[in-house]
């Protein structure tokens, strides 16, 4: 079942230095119980995409697009109904679990708050449910831990608390914005494991945002690759790793360390990400693209279906149409 469908989402920030085209014409869909990976370099618009779905863009404007959740158009929903979606239907966890938890309230208190916002239960019931949630996300001696403040927990434990808070209402969609970026490798894989467990338990769809293709390989069913505010390629995870189409995706995959060949230095894509306030006419990737041709300077490529569920936005593939 299609749970969430994003079409032509465009979000901009109007700053003194110009218009930041943070998210431009982004489309993807999420299916029940599946994980969609959203991958791209930092600053390419991943977080803004997620926050636009939640309609939490106070300083910017969602200029156009559709976000359809189970048939309902979220971008047109009255604010009161949107609040019921936030946390209730679509929950979110963030990159920095320490900064994402309020320092002056106990973690138990913050989870209970998430429960009572969406469910009509007594405080007592919410508290015993909160203890169960802490147990579920693998926090030892949950009763004592519930009285702790965020700073008293380790990074991994804090992210578990964030997860407990997010799943407290059994949302259909979990948006995880770089959930493991701030964590040690071993802790990170434990958190990913926990997310996988909870996903199969609650049949959640996960939007997993990351800049780490390793995490994508481990977790995702499908991948959307983002570059300078746009989706450049979207494919099933197997296809993408076996046969990347977009030159940017190819570049990203070449940058992955190869354990067999053990090169002495890691490859990088030459050049810089363009300034989102001042994008070139034509393809955003033209300056760094080894395959760039004349048309790349002149026209914007569009996302086209190249078969077997793969979409790519590149002139090299548009000619074949």
């Amino acid at each position, binding site marked *: 079942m299609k749970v969430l469908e994003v079409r032509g989402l465009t979000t901009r920030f109007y700053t003194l230095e110009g218009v930041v085209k943070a998210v431009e014409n982004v489309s993807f869909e999420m299916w029940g119980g599946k994980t969609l990976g959203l991958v791209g370099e930092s600053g390419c618009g991943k977080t803004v995409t997620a*926050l636009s779905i*939640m309609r*939490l863009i106070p300083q910017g404007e969602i200029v156009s697009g559709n976000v359809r959740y189970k048939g309902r158009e979220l971008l047109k929903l009255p604010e009161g109904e949107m*609040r*019921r*979606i*936030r*946390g*209730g239907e679509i*929950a*979110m966890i*963030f990159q*920095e679990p320490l*900064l*994402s*938890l*309020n*320092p*002056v*309230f106990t973690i138990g208190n913050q989870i209970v*708050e*998430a429960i009572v*916002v*969406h469910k009509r239960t007594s405080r007592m019931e919410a508290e015993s449910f909160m203890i169960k949630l802490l147990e579920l996300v693998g926090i030892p001696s949950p009763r004592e831990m519930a009285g702790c*403040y965020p*700073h008293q927990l380790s990074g991994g434990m804090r992210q578990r608390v*964030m997860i407990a*808070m997010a799943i407290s209402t059994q949302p259909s969609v979990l948006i995880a914005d770089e959930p493991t970026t701030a964590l040690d490798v071993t802790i990170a894989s434990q958190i990913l494991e926990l997310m996988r467990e909870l996903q199969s338990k609650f049949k959640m769809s996960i939007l997993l945002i990351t800049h780490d293709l390793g995490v994508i390989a481990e977790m995702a069913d499908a991948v959307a690759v983002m570059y300078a505010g746009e989706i450049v390629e979207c494919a099933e995870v197997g296809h993408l790793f076996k046969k990347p189409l977009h030159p940017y995706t190819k570049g990203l995959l070449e940058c992955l360390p190869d354990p067999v060949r053990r090169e002495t230095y890691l490859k990088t894509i030459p050049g810089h990400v363009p300034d989102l306030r001042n994008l070139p006419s034509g393809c955003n990737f033209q300056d760094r693209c080894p395959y760039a041709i004349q048309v790349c300077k002149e026209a914007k490529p569009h996302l086209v279906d190249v078969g077997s569920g793969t979409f790519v936005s590149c002139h090299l593939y548009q000619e074949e149409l």
Partner: protein
Amino acid sequence: MTKYVLKRFLQCIPTLFGITVISFVIIHIAPGSPIGMQLNPKTSPKIVEEMRKNYDLDKPLHIQYFLWLKKLFSGRLYSFKDGKPVLQKIRERLPATLILNITSILLIFGFAIPLGVFSATHRYSFLDNLGTLLAYIGISIPGFWLAYILILGVVKLSGMPVLGMRTFAVEGLRFLELALDRIWHLVLPSLILAIGGIAGISRYMRSSMLEVIRQDYIRTAYAKGLTEDEVYYKHALRNALLPIITIFGFLIPGLIGGSVIVETVFAWPGIGRLAYQSVLSRDYPTVMTIMTISAFLTLFGTLVADILYAVADPRIRYGTK
């Protein structure tokens, strides 16, 4: 915690000692002498000498200091001016000053916090800009000048007396009328005393709130589905108030200094006015004792602020370091 409080308290003692020494020296260096204030120039030198002896003014400065200390603690410190025990004089004046200052503190926090929060939540609106303008005026305007203007204006408009603590020579008032008369007399002086604090702290509260609203945990609170009011008044306010607690300690010296001016202008029978009169008549024992009490209150205020901060912010726990 108890250990920390005790340690901080003991640390105050040398500071207090230092302040009294410096005050003592300054007072005695300042031109004029207690005797010159009391006698006319034709008094015979013999009587002058006798009086100097009487007041210990013939002894070296450091001996005089210790004599003052000894008399203060044995309760045998008498005013140069009227021979009354200094502590008794202060005790008589204390209630008036306490009422004035406590009212001012309540006014300061009662107005400054809501004003600051309002300005922050309506940033750059007309009212916020007006608030900024008024705050600058409030901070820079001299209290005594504003006091005279207000006294003139209010007396002209209402025809009611505003000086002193109550209206004299009005007989047969019932309790309620008496209370209203007292409150009426309290309004202007406490407001004048509070204005600088309201102006300064409301701006401080505004920037503190704006700082907090940018934090990640505010985004988390929205993502939970909380309303804007819940986010502001529960999650943001609690954090934004923390730095305001520290301000409480700095408020006291300003209030003490302000009391001297406001009490003098409004003929308020408090310690501030007593201090002013004692300085004019070079009543060394009284001035010194008031100075010491003021220094003590200031140190005590900072200590109380520190303790309150530790209670309010769970991240601060004074260890056994």
